[in-house]
């Protein structure tokens, strides 16, 4: 679509929405949100971008093939379950590492977080693939 307003707004919104999606994903463990929702938000940002500039440019902006993002996510999710094997627990048991750097920063690293990142990437990758492929499909 050749609309100056859409183009400008999209450039602005795109980064905002993507940042928001990451935020939603990270806060998901304690507040409403998480990998599924974050992924959907990010995917909608990219779909918006492709609506404004076309699928070719959207692919350009992604830099990596969209299915690779999904594959990467699946890999993260699966690998997050393997760590527990070192602790002698069953597959996908959650492990937590909360370093006490100082009082101000509350940092919690865990395998469920890695898993949620995987979900996030899978949702982005798969949905963007479907949308972009449909947009480009020829009769």
């Amino acid at each position, binding site marked *: 679509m050749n609309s100056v307003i859409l183009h400008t707004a999209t450039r602005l919104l795109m980064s905002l929405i993507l940042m928001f999606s990451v935020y939603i994903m990270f806060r998901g463990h*304690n*507040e*409403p949100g998480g990998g*599924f929702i974050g992924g*959907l938000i990010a995917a909608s940002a990219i779909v918006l971008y492709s609506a404004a500039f076309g699928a070719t440019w959207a692919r350009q902006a992604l830099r990596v093939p969209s299915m690779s993002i999904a594959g990467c996510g699946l890999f993260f999710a699966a690998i997050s379950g393997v760590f527990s094997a070192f602790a002698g627990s069953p597959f996908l048991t959650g492990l937590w590492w909360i370093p006490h750097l100082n009082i101000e920063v509350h940092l919690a690293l865990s395998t469920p977080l890695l898993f949620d990142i995987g979900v996030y990437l899978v*949702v982005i990758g*798969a*949905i963007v693939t*479907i949308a972009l*492929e*449909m947009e480009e*499909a020829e*009769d």
Partner: protein
Amino acid sequence: MENVLAIVVGILVACATFLILSRDLIRILLGIAILSNAANLLIFTAGRVTRDAPPLVPGDLEVPAGAYANPLPQALILTAIVIGFGLLAFALVLSYRAYVAMRTVDVDAMREAEPPYPDQSPPTGEDGRQTPLRRRGAAGTPTREAAQ
């Protein structure tokens, strides 16, 4: 409240069924879209509904204080929504490819896998006549119009 939701689920299912029984592939897919919403709502209702009590543990507590909504069906539905979307998207693309290959979305005409028997008549009740709603294409040929 659950009783009212049950009635609404029933209405959604009835609408979805009517669409799925259609001859038009696209309407079948619309039916599937409604059906997946109805199914999610059904699971939600079966797990009982609670107003204004999200299943979140307040930040300073170990266990939720007071009543809270049943979290288990919510977790089930959340993935069901995403999967339902994946299924619908895939089915849409598949239908699109089927249309490209066969130039029709009339499921009665899609008989490549199961060709009609020589003496077989089409199912009864469908006269295949054109409704006066849209009469732009020539009679008997698929009309090629963009979405209305």
